[in-house]
């Protein structure tokens, strides 16, 4: 690997610019309640068509990182989480902001997020290559089962109504089969549309499923909706002693977040709650939690940013996204014709290592821009929906159009957005749809190749040791979910 080439590419003007852009967009979108991390990444996805693969991935990673911190701005200032992963931060962040100063609370959040992000990056650097080497030992049966694990984990671990989540998974898999079959060249469910011969455009799907549906949900709060906040000091700063007081929850949160991120399905929201619970469990001031304890900010914030690095590990080493957000980032790889997985370390060495080290740069950018611009982002929160909705809607329409310059794509995103708006109301899982859509083609290819090898026998999934281990893990996940479902009803009846 040429270190000089790696660093010259990483520190080029264009790469630094796109990292800054991603950070800026991530901060602003993350800070706006209701939009969320997925929205930030999906909005930037169309830009990746016209920039290099490295710039694409770092742009989206910067947005991902920054939005996880950005979500805490709204949690602290308004008491409304800007992203699901910032929900735990409301408990102490909002109270600290009201009792003392919002600036102090935001400082705790920014520092914890930065340290968590760096820790996640270090885990990513040291874990992905060994896991990729292990991945080379796997074959089609194992990849099929890993895909099942990925979609099941998202479906069963991250949603209340498991059956509807599984239906969402199957719906996403169906959407992934639309287009030309790679084995036979036959068209599947294209309904006569030539534009669908290549499958559903990933940008149209992502924007439709997450962004359009979210905009329609925002409209339900009324066009006059506007957030307001008590304009106290937003000045940044904590003392060294105050920082020392949160070292433990930051360490715990970072470790928890990195581990949670590696396992597909859980993601930043779960990690932030685990981080909060761990911070409280090991705190000497448990009674102060929920009353503005800085540890209650540091724990969840370091955890949710640490998941970003952790969730990239399975993507780069096995080709399986560790979260729905990373599934969107996987879209950037696909757009550039790069298949993440064990072989990417040998086929695209400079790119992969640039991403690994570039990830640390995105964390630094989040801290620098966060410090400089948080005060301005706070003002963005109070833009009324009557302006925000049309502006964002237009940007989304343009984003979809930018991918293939076809109005058909915008129509497709719009139709998917309307369908998913209603599905969301009935507790179907939108992240499951996206995850399944991304994994579906890999799953089908692996399945068909495996069955071709075994002449149609499913025994191939039970006779290989790694496959058998994966089958057992999948069975455990299903059993745990079923037991959890039956558990509370037993308590009620007794």
């Amino acid at each position, binding site marked *: 690997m040429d270190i000089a080439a790696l660093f010259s590419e990483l520190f080029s003007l264009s790469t630094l610019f796109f990292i800054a852009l991603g950070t800026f967009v991530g901060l602003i979108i993350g800070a706006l309640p209701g939009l969320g991390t997925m929205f930030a990444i999906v909005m930037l996805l169309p*830009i990746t068509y*016209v920039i290099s693969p490295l710039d694409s991935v770092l742009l989206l990673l910067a947005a991902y990182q920054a939005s996880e911190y950005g979500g805490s701005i709204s949690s602290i200032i308004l008491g409304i989480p800007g992203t699901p992963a910032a929900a735990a931060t409301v408990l102490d962040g909002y109270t600290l902001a009201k009792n003392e100063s919002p600036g102090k609370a935001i400082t705790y959040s920014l520092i914890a997020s930065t340290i968590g992000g760096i820790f996640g990056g270090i885990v990513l650097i040291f874990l992905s290559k060994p896991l990729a080497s292990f991945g080379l030992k796997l074959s089609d049966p194992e990849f099929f089962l890993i895909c099942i694990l990925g979609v099941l984990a998202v479906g069963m671990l991250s949603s209340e*109504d498991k*059956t*509807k989540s*599984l*239906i969402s998974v*199957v*719906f996403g*898999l*169906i959407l992934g*089969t639309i287009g030309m*079959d790679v*084995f*036979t060249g*036959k*068209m*599947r*469910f*294209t*309904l006569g549309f030539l534009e669908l011969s290549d499958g559903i455009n990933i940008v149209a799907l992502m924007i439709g499923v997450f962004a359009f549906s979210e905009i*329609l949900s925002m*409209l*339900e*709060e*009324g*066009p006059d909706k506007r957030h307001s906040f008590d304009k106290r000091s937003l000045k940044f700063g904590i003392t060294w002693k105050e920082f020392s007081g949160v070292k433990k929850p930051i360490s715990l949160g970072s470790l928890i977040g990195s581990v949670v991120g590696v396992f597909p399905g859980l993601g930043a929201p779960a990690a932030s709650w685990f981080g909060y619970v761990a911070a409280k469990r090991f705190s000497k001031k448990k009674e102060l939690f929920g009353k503005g304890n800085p540890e209650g900010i540091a724990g969840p914030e370091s955890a949710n940013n640490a998941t970003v690095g952790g969730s990239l590990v399975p993507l780069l080493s096995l080709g399986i996204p560790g979260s729905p957000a990373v599934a969107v980032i996987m879209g950037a790889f696909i757009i550039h014709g790069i298949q993440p997985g064990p072989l990417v370390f040998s086929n695209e060495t400079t790119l992969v290592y640039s991403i690994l080290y570039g990830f640390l740069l995105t964390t630094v950018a989040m801290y620098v821009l966060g410090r400089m611009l948080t005060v301005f982002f706070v003002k963005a929160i109070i833009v009324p*929906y*009557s*302006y925000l*909705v*049309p*502006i964002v*809607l*237009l940007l989304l*329409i*343009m984003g979809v*159009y*930018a991918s293939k*310059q076809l*109005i058909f794509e*915008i*129509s497709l995103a*719009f139709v998917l957005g*309307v369908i998913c708006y*209603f*599905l969301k*109301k*009935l507790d*179907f899982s939108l992240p499951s749809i996206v995850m399944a859509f991304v994994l579906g083609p890999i799953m*089908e290819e692996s*399945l*068909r190749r495996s*069955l*071709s090898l075994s002449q*149609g026998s499913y025994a191939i999934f039970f006779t290989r040791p790694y496959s058998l281990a994966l089958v057992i893990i999948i069975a455990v996940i299903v059993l745990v979910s079923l037991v959890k479902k039956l558990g509370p009803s037993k308590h009620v009846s007794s």
Partner: protein
Amino acid sequence: MSYKRATYVALSLLMVFGWVYAVSIHITTSGGARNSSIGPTYFPDLLAVLLTVLCIVSFFQTARKKGDSIVRLHYFKYVLITLSLIVAYLLAWYYIGYFYILTFVFLMSLFFIYRRNFSMKQIAKNIAIACSMLLVIYLIFEVAMSIPL
């Protein structure tokens, strides 16, 4: 509409979608030499069956749930108006063109509908914001990304 009823409708539509999907694929991929039983319909058939089974399970789970709630569609008229405007905008863009003029009209329509204020000051503000957005789009998409509009 009640949550349960809405769920039944959604599940029914999803099941029908699954069947139409599977049958359509069988029709479009029929013909030609069949050299494998693991053909282009194998995975879609699995998915269609799985979808049907899951929808039936969900149907019974929903029926067994005690109590019901209402699926509320707050400010639904704004949702409908916005959807209608988007459809009109896309059709006009497709058949007429003149992207910047159409987009200006689209934005101004939404601003007026949402803000419901027709004072001169408000109109001037709306025009300023709409023009700024068009400038941003021009700079990002036409200049930076070289995408003709």
